């Protein structure tokens, strides 16, 4: 009995030591918070708690957004907005100035349009194959297979890596003297210059992007698959449903809310893609894998003439597209919440 009391005492004292800094901070904060509450009243206190986040959001998201719109309406190469001449929608006109919009070479800003078409190609391929592969993986991982937990972890692991690390790993594998070419030559084949051939470069850009993010979407689909009650499949079995028909008529429709989330999220993420493709291919060969975000980055920061106005206008246009996609996602998410 006394032993128990003693151990409880030690536990209490240990806990007391651990919580001491917390208690101290609370005591220090208590005085001004009480003063604020007395001054503005208890009902307005929630706004005080929201204020720090609002400030950070305003400073690092909302203000740059406004500034970006401001830059997109100005010209010249000066950094400070106050020193830049107002050009109205001139930058947008420059971006949209084409003889034939389907042929980037006829556009004044041909790199922007190449970026747009490359991004569309990249996004379409990435979304289609991302959904296919993550669905296939989720279905397999949902089966009673040996080492299921291990494989679930393995497929999710790349998601934890930084996109730059992912791109560097694959660059080491795919470059001229990389692992893959090493394996090909060992087997008697000829080296393939993956980053010199435009088709290969786009293929690997899409492949690496899918490899890096597939685990996340697989997880969403796996959660959806596990939410489908097992007795529905048993009822289908009693109904004499063949496996493929059960997948097509039961699994796919019941998984649709998750599939829509995956499609829209991968669409948004695909449009935003920059770092992994930039590190992997640098947008090359030529402009074969140049994406819109890379165009914006280079126009604003790495070209000899830093054109903040043009980059700002391209950013705003990209922002509008992303906003529309986000609305689409919210629409489907709300539709999914409503009872049907």
């Amino acid at each position, binding site marked *: 009995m006394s032993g128990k009391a003693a151990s409880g005492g030690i536990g209490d004292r240990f806990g007391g030591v651990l919580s001491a800094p917390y208690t101290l901070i609370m005591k220090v904060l208590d005085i001004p918070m009480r003063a604020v509450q007395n001054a503005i009243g208890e009902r307005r206190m929630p706004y005080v708690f929201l204020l720090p986040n609002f400030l950070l959001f305003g400073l690092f998201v909302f203000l740059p957004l406004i500034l970006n719109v401001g830059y997109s309406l100005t010209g010249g190469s000066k950094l400070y907005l106050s020193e830049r001449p107002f050009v109205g929608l001139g930058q947008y006109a420059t971006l949209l100035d084409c003889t034939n919009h389907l042929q980037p070479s006829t556009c004044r800003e041909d790199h922007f349009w190449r970026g747009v078409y490359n991004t569309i190609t990249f996004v379409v391929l990435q979304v289609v194959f991302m959904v296919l592969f993550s669905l296939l993986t989720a279905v397999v991982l949902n089966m009673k297979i040996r080492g299921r937990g291990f494989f679930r972890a393995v497929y999710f692991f790349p998601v934890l890596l930084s996109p730059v690390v992912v791109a560097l790993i694959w660059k080491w594998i795919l470059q001229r003297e990389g692992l893959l070419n090493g394996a090909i030559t060992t087997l008697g084949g000829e080296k393939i210059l993956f980053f010199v051939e435009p088709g290969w470069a786009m293929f690997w850009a899409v492949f690496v992007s899918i490899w890096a993010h597939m685990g996340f979407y697989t997880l969403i689909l796996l959660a959806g698959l596990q939410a489908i009650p097992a*007795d529905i499949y048993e*009822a289908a079995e009693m*109904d004499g*449903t063949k496996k493929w028909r059960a997948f097509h008529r039961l699994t796919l429709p019941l998984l649709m809310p998750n599939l829509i989330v995956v499609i829209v999220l991968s669409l948004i993420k695909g449009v935003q893609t920059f770092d992994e493709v930039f590190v992997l291919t640098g947008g090359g060969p030529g402009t074969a894998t140049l994406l819109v975000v890379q165009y914006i980055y280079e126009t604003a920061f790495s070209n000899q003439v830093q054109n903040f106005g043009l980059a700002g206008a391209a950013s705003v246009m990209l922002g509008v597209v992303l906003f529309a996609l986000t609305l689409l996602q919210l629409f489907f998410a709300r539709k999914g919440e409503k009872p049907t």
Partner: protein
Amino acid sequence: MAQLELKGVHKSYGPVKTIHGVDLSIGDGEFVVFVGPSGCGKSTLLRMIAGLEEITDGTVSIDGKVVNDVPAADRGLAMVFQSYALYPHMSVYQNMAFGLENMGLPRPEIEKRVQRATTMLQLEPYLQRKPKMLSGGQRQRVAIGRAIVRDPKIFLFDEPLSNLDAELRVAMRKELSALHAEIGGTMIYVTHDQVEAMTLADRIVVLRAGRIEQVGTPLDLYHRPANQFVAGFIGSPRMNFLKGTVAAPGTIAIAGGRSLDLPAAAGLPAGEEVTVGIRPEHVALCGREDADVMIRLDLVEHLGGETYLYGQSETLPSMTIKQDGDCAATRGDMLPLRLVRDRLHLFDSAGLVRRAA
């Protein structure tokens, strides 16, 4: 309609045995209810008949043909699940038609069968609704309809009324009885609710720990239980059990009560510990001089048409007595009780019933 036969059916999950050799014959058009406490293996047995669980050992035969290796869909059975297991994205019509489409039936035949089932189950107004837009009772009717349209040899019901509230359960019970009368199919029904078992079954199969304890008609089980488990499980409120000892051949000394002359105890040796069982409706209030036992009343439940009295004494376990609705007994009363002799059940030390020769 069909006959079903189970012979030496065993089920094991790895080293864990859940069904220990079940033998059972179910006749054409019979309504048989599997009943037992949770974990007794009744649902497992049903799922093995359905083809949703593999049979570890023994055989399941339908109309004389062993179906152990026949896939669920080809056994000609239909099952109604506890959770309804309706396809949530399909309408009532699509739910019922899905299995028929799998069978490759022509569209007019599918429509005819669904129409017939929906009329029978009064589901016509809901044909285009999704399951989410239906009440629990309506969903259960759709699940039953899905089974009916397949025109199965045997209907299997796995605790189909468990998710319904008490009032709806009673209503659905009546509907199921009427349905059986109308269709006349062989039906196997699993429940843990002995009232459902008593009201629905032609025959009841009482299961415990993967073994059949007794098979019989509801009244057979009620009046002639094979053992103390069945006696306690069938009947509500449950049978009272009083500990006793064989004082002399044919005489039982009840702990805390009078000695009872029981012909059923004639063959038992003196000194053997036994249990005397008596149902609450077979215990009578009497004068002190006629009392077999005395108890102090702990609780009185007036249900209007009947009254339940609960009491005990220092030497007797808790007892339940059923009386008329106008019974005047109150809490704290000392009640002299007489046990109606020809309604007593005697169980030996192994829990098996002993009957008079």
